[in-house]
């Protein structure tokens, strides 16, 4: 240990010992990044109202309070449905758009891309009240359709970025070969291009699902009543007091999100990219 401290860390003069502060600080920052979320998991199994760590008494009471509550269950259903429909709607739209922009090689494609990516740039609060205002006029407030449309708008840029970057590494000459051998444009896309960017499309769909499922601000304004989303209910509960039921819900969300992301990592062939 002592020898390691005196060893030089780089080809220049500095030793590991002189850099010890850097190592300690870096590890502390990494721990602080990860730990808070992980601590919630054991705490959600605590029996006390004031979520202790380590829990003095273990219990499933917060999970019970979640699963036996009609309003939490209804909100979870709404969120899952909205997220699923958002993925189903935004993935093809965004894939089409990314492909169209890529293949047409338009001179002004940059401006179109900018417009399509705008939902990522405009402050969400502005989008939230804008959509709310429009939905009041269109009578879409608190409707599933309205929620899915708004979430799809937010998800399209995300999917476009993922699929677009896959298309940039794809050799479009392959499609030209297919076309010269008699395939129609649609056949060429479906049978040559799509199988090769499949992994990115699936990743895009998962990200679209998560975009909708995690979305808070727009949901806050345009979802409500029977179509209130999980995030909306959680946010409103958080503003009032620290409800331990949310620890249980958080743990479940972390578990489901991790599973989904692990799935996308292993679902696709390693070859792509």
């Amino acid at each position, binding site marked *: 240990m002592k020898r390691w401290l005196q060893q030089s860390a780089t080809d220049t003069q500095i030793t590991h010992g002189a850099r010890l502060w850097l190592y300690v600080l870096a590890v502390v920052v990494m721990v602080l990044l990860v730990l808070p979320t992980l601590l*919630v998991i054991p705490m959600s199994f605590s029996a006390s109202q004031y979520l202790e760590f380590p829990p003095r008494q273990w219990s499933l009471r917060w999970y019970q309070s979640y699963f036996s509550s009609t309003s939490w269950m209804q909100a979870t259903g709404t969120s899952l449905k909205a997220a699923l429909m958002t993925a189903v709607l935004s993935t093809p739209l965004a894939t089409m758009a990314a492909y169209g922009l890529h293949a047409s090689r338009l001179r002004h494609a940059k401006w179109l891309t900018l417009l399509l990516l705008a939902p990522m740039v405009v402050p969400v609060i502005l989008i939230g009240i804008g959509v709310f205002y429009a939905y009041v006029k269109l009578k879409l407030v608190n409707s599933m359709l309205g929620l899915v449309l708004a979430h799809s708008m937010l998800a399209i840029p995300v999917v476009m970025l993922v699929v*677009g970057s896959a298309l940039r590494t794809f050799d479009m000459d392959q499609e030209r070969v297919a076309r010269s051998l008699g395939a129609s444009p649609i056949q060429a896309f479906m049978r040559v291009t799509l199988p090769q960017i499949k992994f990115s499309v699936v990743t895009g769909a998962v990200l679209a699902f998560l975009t909708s499922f995690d979305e808070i601000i727009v949901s806050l304004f345009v979802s409500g009543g029977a179509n209130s989303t999980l995030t909306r209910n959680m946010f409103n509960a958080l503003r009032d007091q620290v409800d331990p039921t949310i620890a249980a819900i958080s743990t479940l969300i972390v578990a489901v999100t991790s599973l989904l992301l692990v799935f996308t990592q292993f679902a696709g062939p390693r070859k792509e990219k």
Partner: protein
Amino acid sequence: MTALPNTRELRRSALFERLGLIGLVAPALLLILVTMVLPVGWLFYLSVLSDSGAFSLEHYQRMWEHPSYGRTFWTTFQVSFLTTALCILLGYPLCYFLSEIPKRAANLCMIAVLLPLWTSLLVRTYAWLVLLQRRGLINNWGIELGLWDEPLALVHNLTGTLIGTVHVMLPFLVLPLYSSMRAIDRNYLRAAANLGAGPLRSFWLVFFPLAMPGLVTGALIVFILCLGFYVTPAVLGGGKVIMVSSRIANDIEIFFNWGAASALGVVLLVLTVLLMLAAGRLVRMDTVLGGQGK
């Protein structure tokens, strides 16, 4: 060049194909136009209407004259600035560390940076709320260890807001900064050492300037995202830290004042776009937006 017999037909089919490809963009574009561009444009229009419906700049004027708006903007600026500064303070050493260790180890450490990005924002905010509350983990441990006697007010104030926002924003600083540090050719540092520069001098004169683009990109992203941040400040600030976004939401939810909310939103959007344009001058924006996919 003499025209081949089929030139015209070929050109026409090429044109049709191009139109078809552009047509593929239409559905997504339409959705974004209808659910974002039009509504936000409508808000622009509402912001220049008086309560009676005539054209007026009263909402902007009030923003200028009423001191409470000044406070809101000051809070927003303060939180954004402090968050950016704290992120740099914590993120720079972390990135430096990550860029100095072997790549495989660094990739493993990057999980710590990426994991929060993948976790729901509400879950992370809730986690801090639980840890920082009066009878939360941090106060309990602090008292047990004798660091302080009374429970500290760590949440529902500026402290809590900053802890939460720094935690959420740090990955956005680390990603561009780390990749620009990783790209630095270490031979420059060897050359500096060879020419007699000590570690500090070669860091400051060689490494730091080379890592500057990543630092500027990261800091600007964090600052821009902070300006429009709503959720974490609203929860961890507990109504005491009113940033522009919270104010907009309050104007709508409590006062139904569309004009005032729209005007604030317009100012927020203009600030965001101006900062992004400035950022675009300094660094290429597509590397920022498309950086993760590569």
